[in-house]
């Protein structure tokens, strides 16, 4: 079942890639829609980020003292200042580990 959904997801993804390139008239995608599509990453990824931070494995809201909150905040600050993807990920992970293992 999971294999089948991976294949369907793959076909769907390929369609998003080839549609506009093979389509005869690319203007079907209006200026307005193009602008909105530019916001897709900002609209999708927070829906993964927020629950992954604010809920625990059992789907309950975490407490304000949870190390995940501080790891994420630290990563955001480092990311904002450095604009570096790797620095962002690793600063978050390392601060999270420091809190878990040292405190």
């Amino acid at each position, binding site marked *: 079942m999971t294999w089948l959904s991976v294949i369907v997801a793959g076909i769907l993804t390929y369609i998003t*890639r080839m549609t*506009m390139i093979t389509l005869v008239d690319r203007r079907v995608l209006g200026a307005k829609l193009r*602008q909105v599509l530019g916001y*897709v990453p900002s*609209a999708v990824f927070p829906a993964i980020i927020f629950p992954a931070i604010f809920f625990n494995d059992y789907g309950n809201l975490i407490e304000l003292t949870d190390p995940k909150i501080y790891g994420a905040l630290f990563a955001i600050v480092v990311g904002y200042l450095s604009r570096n993807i790797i620095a962002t990920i690793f600063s978050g*992970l390392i601060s999270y580990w420091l809190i878990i293992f040292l405190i």
Partner: protein
Amino acid sequence: MLSKSEIFKKGFLAVAPHMLSVIPFGIICGAIGVEMGFNPYLVYAMSIIIFGGASQIVFLQLISAGASSFIAVASVGIINSRHLLYGAVLSEYLEKLTLLKKLIISYFIVDQGFAESNKYFKKNKDQKNIHYHLLGTGITLWICWQISTILGIILGSFIPDELGLKFAVPLTFIAILVSELRKVDHVIVILVSGISSLLFFEAPLKSYIIISPIIALFAASLVLRFKK
């Protein structure tokens, strides 16, 4: 006049710096899939069949959290809908290719490759064979992605659970969005999506992953209206 292989090489060189972020991302993607208990062959096959980092992680996360396949597939579709935009922009430069070539080159369109090749296309509109640049960026990233997911799958079986590697998932997505944090309109969309995802988290079938982006895109269209 540059030869095809020279243009291809330019594409390779243009995306080379991006390997620094693609490789750790691929390793995380492979490692997390194995940690979540998926068949390693499935985790790897996704890198060929879907070939879209963020959507692969989301798919695995949703399925492991008990979401239905429909929701998981639909969210892959939403996440990857941004390729429509890339295609619309690139199509202008690829118009003269045969259908077969267009179909092949489409498979290799990814974020970083699009960004770099689009820059090159803008500057070299009138040159011949510029599509080799897109092949250069795309194939380079493809190989990088394949190797790094395999590496992640191998490493994933050694990484102890206590490290809480799952936390790398939100961090990776934070890292993708950091470049947008300086734009107020994007920050609004980010907050709307994030808060909606918390409010609708209990919605049936993990549908928050579809509901929140739709609300956020609606907010984006309102923001666009105010920007004018």
